[in-house]
């Protein structure tokens, strides 16, 4: 056995044959001593690759719970209208809920700037990393944004994820609710093409509904596809442009926050 061999209950197997006739604990070597490798040893690991992210997500979640904040991870494809819808959301929630935004953006502060002046605390996370930028927010990125938010003075934090229908679905950030903005300009088949994302969400805001008369979009076919991948999903039909459905979405957010505080009154702000 090599000196780094573990005996901590993690199984191991050898795919080469040699005698283990010396007692364990002795610092001996096998094979020749020329540095030429005579074999390999297989060591069992069985470790989940997202454990590190999920551990940080749990820390975020604990901070949110301690502050009595309800956190929504808002995801969508690029251009689905997340920021426009958020602007309308902030206008309506002003005076009702104290809102903070974690804004994920690969390179710019454009979206953060669009959200300024609406009464919300905004913390921007640029995800550029030298390789063209990350395509999602992960738990450590959200954690890095938290010191710039007055969590104790907030009721609701909306994490505006990077526009992408693939990667954000894989990363928990500590949220209580996952919500998606889907624009009807994206086509009816999207739930079937991106089932992991559409399955991971509790709620879909079907947005840009004001464009329906101008498109060949089949709303019923979209709902059939959506229910095929996520039968329980809740839906709001919205238009940031006309304001349709935004009141209902805001009422849902308020109710979700109230419900959370009722379930755990210890978290209600004093």
């Amino acid at each position, binding site marked *: 056995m*090599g*000196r*780094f061999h*573990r005996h901590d209950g993690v199984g191991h197997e050898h*795919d*080469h044959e040699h005698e283990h006739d010396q007692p364990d604990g002795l610092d001996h*070597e*096998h*094979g020749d001593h020329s540095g030429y*490798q*005579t*074999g*390999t*040893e*297989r*060591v*069992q*690991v*069985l*470790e*989940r*690759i*997202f*454990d*590190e*992210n999920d551990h940080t997500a749990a820390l975020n979640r604990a901070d949110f719970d301690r502050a009595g904040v309800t956190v929504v991870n808002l995801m969508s494809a690029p251009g689905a209208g997340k920021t426009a819808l958020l602007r309308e959301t902030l206008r309506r929630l002003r005076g009702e809920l104290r809102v903070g935004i974690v804004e994920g953006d690969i390179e710019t502060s454009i979206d953060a700037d669009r959200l300024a002046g609406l009464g919300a605390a905004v913390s921007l996370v640029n995800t550029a*990393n030298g*390789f*063209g930028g*990350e*395509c*999602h927010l*992960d738990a450590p990125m959200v954690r890095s944004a938290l010191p710039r938010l007055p969590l104790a003075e907030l009721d609701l934090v909306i994490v505006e994820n990077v526009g992408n229908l*693939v*990667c954000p*679905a*894989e*990363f928990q950030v500590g949220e209580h609710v996952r919500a998606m903005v889907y624009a009807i300009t994206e086509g009816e088949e999207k739930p*079937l093409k991106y*089932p*992991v*994302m559409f*399955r991971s969400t509790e709620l879909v805001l079907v947005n840009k509904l004001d464009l329906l008369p101008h498109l060949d979009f089949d709303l019923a076919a979209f709902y059939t596809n959506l*229910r*095929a*991948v*996520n*039968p329980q999903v809740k839906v709001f039909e919205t238009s940031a442009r006309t304001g349709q459905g935004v009141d209902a979405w805001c009422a849902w957010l308020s109710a979700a926050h109230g419900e959370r505080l009722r379930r755990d009154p210890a978290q209600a702000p004093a």
Partner: protein
Amino acid sequence: MHELSICNSIGGIVSKHAAGRQVQIVHLRIGKLRQIVPDTLVYCWSLVSEDTVLAGSRLEIESIPAAIHCTRCDHDQVLTEAIFVCGSCGGSSVEVVAGEEFLITSLELAEA
């Protein structure tokens, strides 16, 4: 392209378990419901491991099909498309029983 940051996570776990020994193969188990592209992951691994002690190691990926279990009629089935509806009773109260795996199962280390 989250494969790059995932490779960084894999590198951290592998280094911890290898404890300084030379790594030849990293065995991964990836469910079909994971948004991971195996070829991209392999390519990113070569980028991330280059110029590190993990250089020269490679990923071996075991792909796991997605499977669901119907909680109404107890029917089990493997999914070939992303339709989460029971093929037997047509119900939608199904749970995913396979396909969400994403873990490092084992390492092949050079004998010290």
